[in-house]
Structure formats: structure tokens, C-alpha cells
């Protein structure tokens, strides 16, 4: 079974999702004895970093010889992936369902005429007839649907943080790869990139500290940021907070915001409206901090503190600092 994995990079560094994608492919189809995983890098990275994908199950890694793919233009990347699919003879394409993945997989499923299982939660269950059963959340995390997937060509995209990468050393070689993609095929022209500096991207974060109206105003957000800093977490907020412009909308998690599934989600001063819970309820561990013992968040939380955020947060931050030093 031949698989092509598309691995994202940014500024010459492999993204976290690159390792996840390789490991997801390896763990999903490990039972297939003839498994062969080729990785197409979405741009040039350090050769040693590329070779390390072998630790997670890659058999060969294709490094673009030209710089054309180093910035992300969706149409150029889609064409490059199609070229790599043809050259590798892969039957299955695996990638992360990140913003890049979300732009690529719909185009590729039409262009490559493949059945698309997009945004799955876990590795497919493979049946003896070759079909897969996949699971994905629906109704904004309020439900889970299982689907049957069959077809000669298939695309599988998985949610970030869906599966922990596992080391499984396989012999791996990095090859230079020449793309036939020409920059004239670009359909958009980038004018400006604004990168969030020094912050952990919310969708990639393993830990997230989220604030709600209980914080009483944007001037108190240092309490959230201090806590986030001591536990290497990203910061997030509820819908009212972004609606009132206390925080920018790209921090809004919930049904109409970003859906996340970190290992740890701490909700501070968020009551837990159904729309908010929808976006965060697949988090592995949930901590709720709220003055109201009846707040709906305590019904889904694993750990709770009934108390004033202004009192709880500094103490919690100190306690984590002690653990980290300890």
C-alpha cells in the first residue's frame, strides 16, 4: 500500500502537523505489511529535520529542489501534490486538516477524483474488504458520525492533536524532488503576511487557557496570559469577549469560532453556553473556574474551582510555577 503524506512547513521549519501526519499514516495502516510512506514536503526545510520524519514512519522524503513551494499558494501546492501523487503511484493521500489542509483537500478530491474523508478524529478502522470506517464530529462537536469510505483513490485528513506521534524508526532517505509546477499557475498574489509572533497557534496548542466575561475587562487579561505562559499554553476567549472586542476574534473558540481539542482546556469566568461547549468539549481534560457553582461548565469539566478568577488565577499560576521548579 503506497501512501503520500503532505507535510507542512513554514519559514523552513516543519510544522507540528508534519510529524503528526507521518505518524497518523503509519499508525493507521501499520498492519499493512507492504506499507510504503512517501512524504512530500510543502517547501524546503533543513535536510536533517526532513530525515527525522523517518523516526515517525516515513520511508522516503521528497524535498522540493526549487523554492517555488516555500510560501503557501494553495493552487501551486495542489498542483505539486497532484504531480507527487502521480509519480509515487500512491492510492492514499494523508494530511492534517489545518487551514492549509482545509484549502487543499476539497480541490484535490475533485482534481484527483478521490473519495475524501476530511477532518477525521481517529485512524480509520480498516475492514477486510478494503473499506474504512471513519469517525468525525458533526453538529459542531455535539455529535459524532461514522462513515464508510471506499474507492480506488482516497484522501484522509485528520484533526490536529487527534493522535500522539509515536516513534517507530523506519529506514528513510531524503530525495531532492523537481516539480513541474510553474509560478504562472498561481491564482492569488500574496501582499502581506501577519504572523502571530511568539504565541502558540490555538489550533496546534496542547494546552489552552480561555477567558470569559468573568474577567470583567481586557485590562485583566494579564492574569490569563501569565497562567498561559507558565504552562506553555495558548490563550483563547468566549464569544461575548470577542464580540465586545476585548480580544481579537481569532481567539474565539466555540461553535461559531474555532473548534479545538487540546489536552488541557481551562475555562476561566466562562459560564459554558451550549455553543461554547460545542467548540471545546473534545478537549481531553477540562478545568472550569467560575464564581457560580451552578454554571453549566461544571457539568462537562473534569476539575472545578468555585471562586473568583482574580483570586484563583494568581494562586494557580504560582502553584504551577512551583511544580515546574520542583
Amino acid at each position, binding site marked *: 500500500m503506497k501512501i503520500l503524506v503532505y507535510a*507542512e512547513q513554514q519559514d523552513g521549519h516543519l510544522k507540528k502537523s508534519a510529524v503528526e501526519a507521518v505518524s497518523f499514516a503509519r499508525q493507521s495502516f501499520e498492519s499493512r505489511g507492504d506499507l510504503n510512506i512517501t512524504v512530500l514536503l510543502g517547501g524546503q526545510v533543513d535536510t536533517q529535520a526532513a530525515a527525522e520524519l523517518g523516526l515517525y514512519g516515513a520511508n522516503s522524503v521528497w524535498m522540493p529542489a526549487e523554492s517555488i513551494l516555500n510560501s503557501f499558494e494553495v493552487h501551486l501546492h495542489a498542483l505539486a501534490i497532484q504531480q507527487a501523487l502521480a509519480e509515487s503511484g500512491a492510492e492514499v493521500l494523508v494530511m492534517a486538516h*489545518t*487551514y*492549509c489542509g*482545509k*484549502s*487543499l483537500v*476539497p*480541490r484535490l*478530491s*475533485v*482534481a484527483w477524483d478521490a*473519495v475524501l474523508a*476530511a477532518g477525521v478524529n481517529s485512524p480509520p478502522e480498516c475492514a477486510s474488504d478494503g473499506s474504512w470506517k471513519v469517525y468525525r*464530529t*458533526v*453538529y*459542531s462537536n*455535539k*455529535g*459524532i*458520525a*461514522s*462513515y464508510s469510505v471506499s474507492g480506488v483513490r482516497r484522501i484522509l485528513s485528520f484533526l490536529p492533536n487527534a493522535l500522539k506521534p509515536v516513534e517507530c524508526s523506519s529506514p528513510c532517505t531524503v530525495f531532492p524532488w523537481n516539480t513541474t509546477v510553474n509560478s504562472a499557475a498561481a*491564482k*492569488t*498574489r*500574496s*501582499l502581506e*503576511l*501577519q*504572523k*502571530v509572533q511568539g504565541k502558540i497557534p490555538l489550533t*496546534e496548542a496542547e494546552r489552552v487557557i480561555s477567558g470569559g466575561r468573568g474577567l470583567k475587562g481586557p485590562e485583566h487579561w494579564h492574569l490569563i496570559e501569565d497562567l498561559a505562559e507558565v*504552562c506553555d499554553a495558548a490563550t483563547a476567549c468566549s464569544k461575548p469577549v470577542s464580540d465586545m472586542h476585548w480580544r481579537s*476574534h481569532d481567539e*474565539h473558540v466555540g*461553535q*461559531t469560532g474555532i473548534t479545538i481539542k487540546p489536552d*488541557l482546556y481551562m475555562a476561566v469566568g466562562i459560564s459554558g453556553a*451550549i455553543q461554547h461547549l460545542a467548540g471545546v468539549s*473534545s478537549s*481531553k481534560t*477540562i*478545568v472550569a473556574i467560575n464564581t457560580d457553582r451552578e454554571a453549566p461548565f461544571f*457539568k*462537562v*469539566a*473534569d*476539575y*472545578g*474551582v468555585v*471562586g*473568583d478568577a482574580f*483570586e*484563583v488565577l494568581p*494562586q494557580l499560576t504560582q*502553584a504551577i510555577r*512551583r*511544580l515546574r521548579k520542583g
Partner: protein
Amino acid sequence: MNILVCLSQVPDTTTKISFTSDNKELNKAGVQYIINPYDELALTKALELNEASGGGSITVVHVGGADAEPVLRKALAIGADQAVRIDTAPMDARQVAAEIAHFVSSASFDLVLAGRESIDYNGGLVGGMLAEYLDWPLVNVATSIEGGAGGSMIVCRDMDGGREKLEVYLPAVITCQKELTEPRIPNMRGIMAARTKPLQVLAPQGKGADMHVLEHALPPSRQACRFFEVHQMDELVEALHQQAKVL
């Protein structure tokens, strides 16, 4: 500009989700349907773009049964000029995209706007598939759209860990994210006018679905919450470290 807005109808965001006894579909009893919130932003943006340029027409398209007509009438009340319903049950993104692509090829649109995802199946795929069927550019998850020079649009889009401003030439498909604009509430004049605006029903091309739902389930329920007092933060941290292993 002639703008097409793709609309889907979804359960109201406050809906408590449950499934039919065979778990094959949503239990629709008591469910209120609304225009998918991101599609509503797309419609509002279409109105703003045409108001700014002083011309053009806006068509909304929906793939689905007659039960969606109240939602299409609402779109007409908000300000769309005409509605089109492609009369087939929506099964998966590829089928919906193929039906809309066929309709777009039979008309002349400058721009197709859609929500970045629907809040029922959350696929976020129809816009991208449509762009590929039409061989048009795609800009996914746009937070601002403005007219540029010489038939181009200047669009900001969300990306992993940041935002990009880019230029795209029309015709194009753009999917819409929060922050793009605020939805409009239809006024009485709009509601009256909507009754007589055209709502055309088209026969489907009949492309089948690739993806078949086996069954639905509710998310697993979580264990009861373990409470800590404000002075027990070391104990909470210990539990997160030792028991949950997340710190």
C-alpha cells in the same frame, strides 16, 4: 457584480442535538432551522460589495428539499434578488459542489461567496470543491473582502498562526469567516418584497454521493467534576500533573 451566495440551512445554534432511534439521522422534532451563520455573513458581504459599487445582482443557491424555502425567503428579505433551489437531498460535499458548479456554468457570475463551513456537518469543503470544478481561484476563510484595481479583489484570510492579505482575480470563490461583517436583520419592506421575488426550482444533475453515513452517536459523557477550594491550588496542579497527566 453578479454574485452567487451558497446557502445551507442548519439547526439553530442553541439546539440540543439528538438522533433518530436508528441513529441514521438528526431527530428533527422541535428543531428550528436558520441560515448557516457563515452563509449569512456571505450574503451580507455580497450586499455590501454591490452597494459600494452601485450595481449588480445577488442570487442565493441552495441544494435541498422544499423545507428550505423559508430560509431562502429570509435571504430574499435580507436583500438577495433571486433564489435558486436545486431539488435534491444533500448527501455529501462533492455532490452539493457538483450541483452548484453545474448551475454556475449555466449562468454568468463574477464571484461566488459561501460560508467557511456549515455548522451542521462542519465540512468546509463545498467552496474548495466548487472552485476546482470551475477551475476558479479559491480564497478560504476570508475576514475581509474589498474591491481592488482592474477586476481584482483584496482579501484577508485566516491561516495557521496568522493572517494573509492577498489579491485574487475574478471570477473566484471566497469562503467567509466571522469578522467579515455583521448579519443584517430584514426590515418590513424587505420581508414584503421577498414574497414576490423569484424562487426558481431546478432539477438536479443527479451526481451520487461518495460518503455514506453509517450512524450517529452523541459524544461520550464525561465523569463528574472534582471540585477544589481556592486554597487548594497545589492539589489541583498535582491532579493535573499526576492523574490527568496534562501538566
